[in-house]
């Protein structure tokens, strides 16, 4: 590997190189498009590559820069967008057949932000259909493969975004996280992912899975990159009623601070025991030790209701999803299947949904429809909401004594493709550590903790109180620096080279 290969630089360093005239955005964008062309046939991280548009934006940036225009810090640095985010004039499928061929007439608010700051959009990344899954195997367009081992899953639902940045196809990517879909892929691909505070990033234009849990966030290779991208896409949006008004600290400053002296880090007792693989736990403990060595205080905290979180999540999420996915009926957009006999509206809806949705989507629609039915609502949806309140109380109690909480992000390293597809419950257990933050609306970050079982990456997760996303960047930035010192460079540098890569 050459240190001058621009696609291997962090996004912040690519931005600096653009500013300092070491290269132009068109070259940089072209380099990423070449990389996609070289490796994505194997990885399948992208569902759509928008080459012409990305290059056009890049040239605009170069022209503007040459003219001395004031530009956003990340202007000209390419970005990939998870295909659950609506992009005007660019196919948006949520990896579902039911939306195949749909060209949205509008942009998600966060996409407007990307366009306003003039980040060339490289394309749309692969995912589990409607973000339902933990392995990207539920994509209607084939799974994404982990760049560490192409027989392994890249995590999910945002496996495409994680692999896109992990395999240097994009320096930055957008993910969405309903139960861990940003953090768990980060963990198993050796990348960084942040689920912001619920309401920090507008949901307008995210194809909803579970409205009260969904949150978009940055997918990157470094903590500082994540902070910069989060600052770009965050902020109040009047089109999202659940969007928060200001009140956040500076993420980029926190990411650069690299100072954890006196920070109190609470280890969640319920999320470090059995179920977590030994080497995943070992890397977690080493990470904590490194932080302790840097002046942080490590304490044990109990969040007793977290044990009910997974169950509550698998009632609330499908309930909301069953409702949010009702609009996919073949009437107004996307797939329409017209049965030959009796093509009534009802029959078209049935046939379209039957043909357009994959098994996991149907499973969750059925679960949610059942949970919301008269006579079952109180026992299922109602009880789950009570658990949600208890989980929030656990967080509130814990944050009275600590600044951030910590756990391994996922129980294991990347498992093999197909290993868990026939066992939904085993698949759901991947999210045990990430789900509580979605139920409580609290922010979380995952960053690499080292190589664990089978020489594959593991992740460490930090959680902070609502609106205290800056603490994630502070602790994450500090740990990243400590670990990279011990590894002698980024963890991703230890990933195997991909065949078919461009000449370096």
């Amino acid at each position, binding site marked *: 590997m050459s240190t001058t290969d621009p696609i291997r630089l962090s996004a912040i360093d690519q931005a600096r190189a653009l500013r300092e005239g070491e290269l132009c955005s068109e070259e940089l964008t072209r380099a990423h498009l070449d990389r996609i062309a070289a490796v994505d046939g194997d990885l399948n991280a992208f569902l759509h590559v928008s080459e012409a548009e990305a290059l056009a934006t890049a040239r605009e940036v170069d022209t503007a820069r040459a003219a001395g225009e004031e530009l956003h810090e990340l202007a000209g640095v390419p970005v990939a967008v998870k295909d659950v985010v609506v992009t005007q004039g660019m196919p948006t499928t949520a990896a579902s057949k039911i939306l195949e061929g749909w060209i949205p007439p*509008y942009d998600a608010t966060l996409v407007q932000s990307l366009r306003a700051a003039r980040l060339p959009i490289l394309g749309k990344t692969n995912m589990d259909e409607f973000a339902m899954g933990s392995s990207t195997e539920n994509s209607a367009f084939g799974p994404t493969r982990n760049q560490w081992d192409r027989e392994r899953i890249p995590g999910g639902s945002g496996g495409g975004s994680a692999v896109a940045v992990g395999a240097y196809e994009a320096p930055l990517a957008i993910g969405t996280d309903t139960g861990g879909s940003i953090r768990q892929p980060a963990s198993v691909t050796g990348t960084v992912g942040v689920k912001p505070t619920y309401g920090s990033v507008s949901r307008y234009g995210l194809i909803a899975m579970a409205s009260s849990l969904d949150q978009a966030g940055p997918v990157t290779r470094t903590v500082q990159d994540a902070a910069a991208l989060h600052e770009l896409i965050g902020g109040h949006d009047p*089109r*999202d009623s659940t969007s928060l008004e200001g009140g956040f600290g500076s993420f980029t400053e926190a990411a650069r601070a690299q100072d954890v002296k006196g920070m109190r880090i609470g280890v969640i007792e319920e999320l470090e025991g059995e179920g977590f693989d030994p080497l995943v736990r070992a890397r977690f403990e080493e990470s904590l030790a490194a932080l302790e060595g840097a002046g942080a205080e490590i304490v044990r905290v109990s969040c007793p209701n977290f044990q009910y979180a997974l169950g509550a999540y698998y009632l609330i999420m499908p*309930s909301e999803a069953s*409702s949010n996915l009702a609009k*996919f009926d073949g009437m107004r957009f996307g797939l329409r299947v017209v049965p030959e006999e009796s093509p009534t509206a009802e029959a078209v809806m049935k046939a379209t949904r039957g043909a357009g949705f994959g098994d996991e989507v149907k499973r969750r629609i059925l679960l949610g429809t059942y949970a*919301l039915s*008269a006579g079952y609502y109180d026992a299922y949806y109602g009880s789950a909401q009570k658990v949600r309140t208890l989980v929030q109380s656990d967080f509130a109690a814990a944050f009275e004594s600590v600044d951030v909480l910590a756990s391994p992000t996922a129980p294991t390293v990347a498992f093999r493709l197909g290993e868990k597809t026939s066992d939904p419950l085993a698949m759901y257990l991947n999210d045990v550590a990430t789900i509580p933050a979605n139920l409580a609306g609290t922010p979380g970050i995952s960053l690499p903790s080292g190589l664990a079982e089978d020489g594959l990456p593991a992740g460490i997760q930090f959680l902070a109180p609502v609106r205290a996303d800056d603490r994630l960047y502070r602790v994450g930035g500090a740990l990243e620096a400590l670990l990279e010192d011990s590894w002698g460079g980024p963890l991703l540098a230890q990933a195997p080279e991909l065949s078919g890569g461009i000449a370096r």
Partner: protein
Amino acid sequence: MSAVDLVDFDTALERYDPVLGIEVHVELGTATKMFDGAPNIFAAEPNTAITPVSLGLPGTLPVVNRKAVEYAIKIGLALNCEIAESCRFARKQYFYPDLTKNFQTSQYDEPIAHDGWVDVELEDGEIVRVEIERAHMEEDAGKNTHVGGSTGRIHGATHSLVDYNRAGVPLVEIVTRPIPGTGKRAAGVAAAYVRTLRDIFRALDVSEARMERGNVRADINVSLRTSPDAPLGTRTETKNVNSFRSIERTVRFEISRQAAILDQGGTVIQETRHFHEDTGSTSSGRVKSDAEDYRYFPEPDLVPVAPSREWVEELRATLPELPAARRRRLLGEWGFSDLEMRDVLNAGALDLIEQTVAAGAPAQAARKWWTGELARVANEREVELDGLGVTPAQVAELQGLVDGKKINDKIAKQVLGKVLEGAGDPAAIVEKEGLAVVSDDSVLSAAVDQSIADNPGVVEKIRGGKVQAIGALIGPIMKATRGQADAGRVREIILEKLGVDG
């Protein structure tokens, strides 16, 4: 339609006690939709008053229209309701092509207004108090048009078109508690209640409240029981009844129909029914059983609506005078008799008279025009008074010409006729057509001289003291001037010329 057994309405009420329940939907006259920036307009080209949100496109989110909340609170306050300190929206889920998201965003167990009442004045002046259970906010659906069938209904249609212009238009639904004790006045109470609400919506200026446009739609629930002490009977709900007359006919028909069923020992089926304007009957819609499950749950894309008490009190303080209070005030100001006032109300002339008075006409004169000649023409043309094309200002101007002795009553009717034909304002018509009363002595004097010369016999009689014979001289003069002569002045001139004291 198969023949339905019916019991005569009055006979039915000898044996059964009717109980009503009425749900009224009113479309709010906000500039934009309930959760969306799309314009809230009527009769635009299909599928033009829409945005990605109106269409429920993937990724779109609702945002509550603050003006719609304000209007809902005003309606709640006018109906003497409690206004919730915090209330949520809920999703009411069912699949139908006119529903863009396959759920309607509505309110379920947390309405913005609840527990109120409204006094309803019947035609005979009696007051009935109707208890209001709740008023809640929701969005309207789009509109399906079924093509290819014979009746415009879905049965037999080859395909359907959907117009989403109406999808997302803000609605407030007002639900009564069961209305007992109406007996033989049941039909009148139902219509008067909806009319009262319609008048309140207009007074609050929250809706145009035009029944014929479907701005106000009523679902009429009727049940019968054997006595006022008996538990409530099974009800039917006749949907979307859109005129006062149809509301009365619906109630009468359902009472007659249900009585016949009960007389034969049958049971009334709980169902929705449709009213048919042509036959005045209702027919079975879908069976509404407990099996229907809308899977309501709190709308997760919206935060609770929590109107501050300050805001509510501010709105309460700025509520306009409501129709009942206004009627009492105007009755006093105008000095009408109760009977006159009732005629005014029944003619739907209250606003028009008030505006005519405001434009300068005396109240009694304004009343006579609107409940007299204009009511007659409206009746003839089968339109509402405000659909005649005559403005209160024109009526006041006409009366001003009469009071100023520019024209007499007879000419005034002629002028009004021309105004109704669209010929313009009364003064201009009088001017243009030379209809002003002729009181110019030089003109009249010549006509009088002619009449005296033509009728020596009559002149003799008058000189002989039979002054009442003067009519025979005036008549030809009026004829000669085509009625425009000032008859009083003509009389004075004749007497003057003949040297006779009137």
